[in-house]
């Protein structure tokens, strides 16, 4: 948010830490794989907190044994979308869980514009608040570049 002192969005795990190195990322991936999770890579240009469904970069990766496979896909995505947010998500297919259990950002644009708070006057002097993502101010085709 605009009040964030580090000027970086904080979503998912490890977001208050410095960026994870590839070694650290593959250790996290391996941890998930050992638990039987399926990893997937997703990217977006709009990190709005309510933007739950990011674009999928390929289908989720089932039946992997080693982190190198996920890292390969992640590096492909980084090469394709260097200035986008990219996150890794782990899906636990265990019956009764069947949900995302890990999610963390692994790539950020150099310039993170953040969000603003928009106030709307409503009848009876009511104020409605909403969060606006500065990234969406630019046309879609121009986002993801500096």
């Amino acid at each position, binding site marked *: 948010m605009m009040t964030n002192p580090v000027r970086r969005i904080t979503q998912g795990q490890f977001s208050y830490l410095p960026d994870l190195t590839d070694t*650290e990322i593959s250790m996290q991936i391996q941890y998930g794989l*050992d638990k039987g999770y399926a990893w997937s890579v997703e990217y977006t240009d709009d990190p709005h907190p309510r933007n739950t469904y990011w674009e999928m970069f390929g289908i989720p990766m089932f039946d992997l044994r080693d982190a190198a496979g996920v890292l*390969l896909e992640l590096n492909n995505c980084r090469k394709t979308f260097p200035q986008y947010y990219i996150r890794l998500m782990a899906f636990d297919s265990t019956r009764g869980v069947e949900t995302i259990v890990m999610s963390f950002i692994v790539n950020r644009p150099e310039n993170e514009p953040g969000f603003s708070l928009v106030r709307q006057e409503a009848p009876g002097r009511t104020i409605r608040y909403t969060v606006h993502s500065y990234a969406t101010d630019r046309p879609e085709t121009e986002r993801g570049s500096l």
Partner: protein
Amino acid sequence: MAAPLYQIPGQAAPSPPAAPATSAASPAEVQAALAEGVVGARTVAEVLAQSQADTVIAELEHDLIGLAPVKGRIRDIAALLVIDKLRMNLGLQAQAPSLHMSFTGNPGTGKTTVALRMAQILHRLGYVRKGHLVAVTRDDLVGQYIGHTAPKTKEVLKKAMGGVLFIDEAYYLYRPENERDYGQEAIEILLQVMENQRDDLVVILAGYKDRMDTFFRSNPGMSSRIAHHLDFPDYPAGDLLRIADKMLESQNYRFGRGARAAFEEYLLRRIPQPHFANARSVRNALDRARLRQASRLFADRDRVFTPDDLSIIDESDIRASRVFHIAAPQAQT
């Protein structure tokens, strides 16, 4: 970016002793330490003891009959890997050896079995992290329409990361008669990964000798990236007979009186015939003998069977084979 305040395994430790890592990755850390395994060993015996690779090699010697040249080559490779470990422990940097292999040989000569063992050996020596074998054929790699091949091949490669990718009948990947065939695309992706991710993946190509030779001639890039060409010889009849003993033993059967000699005679007649597939044919022949044994016993409705009755393959079960009737005139020569 500031240096992290915590220690990453596999990197030089910071001077003050780092607190034990309590991140979510701790099982992965243990795994990584295990995979690195052979730490600080100074002698071959120590490396072998720590990695337990010699038990796999001994099993290979014991379980697989014949195949002397293949076993010799595997011992050589294992020796190189062990010495490399020792060199690494003494700080002599060496590039990780290229371990991609090609197995050529006739059907039923044990290519898949050896590939499975190879994955175990490489895993014990710490050269592949997981040691699983992903066996694929052309169908799993090559797509059916434009743009289908790359994702398919990449998915298989991702599954095989950390283990061994075994491509059976690899020569089917390349179809020179059809220039719009997508096999070439799969080969190019394979080559790229074989070159760039040597540490993550070992590729084993398998196929019949003559066709693989053609395949390598038309794909020189592939040939030059494969360091080990192993040729699997056909088994002589004696070895096949010992394989038959082993197969029966593993299924709790055994040859009755005269049956072993009959089976040897069967093999001598069967080998020159077309479509003989070495150990696979032996297994099929034994399965058919079991069928005949079963129907022989089935006919005896009121008999009480002893364990011996149920586990002995009789001479008659083998003599009933088609081979003895067809090949009789030829066998005189």
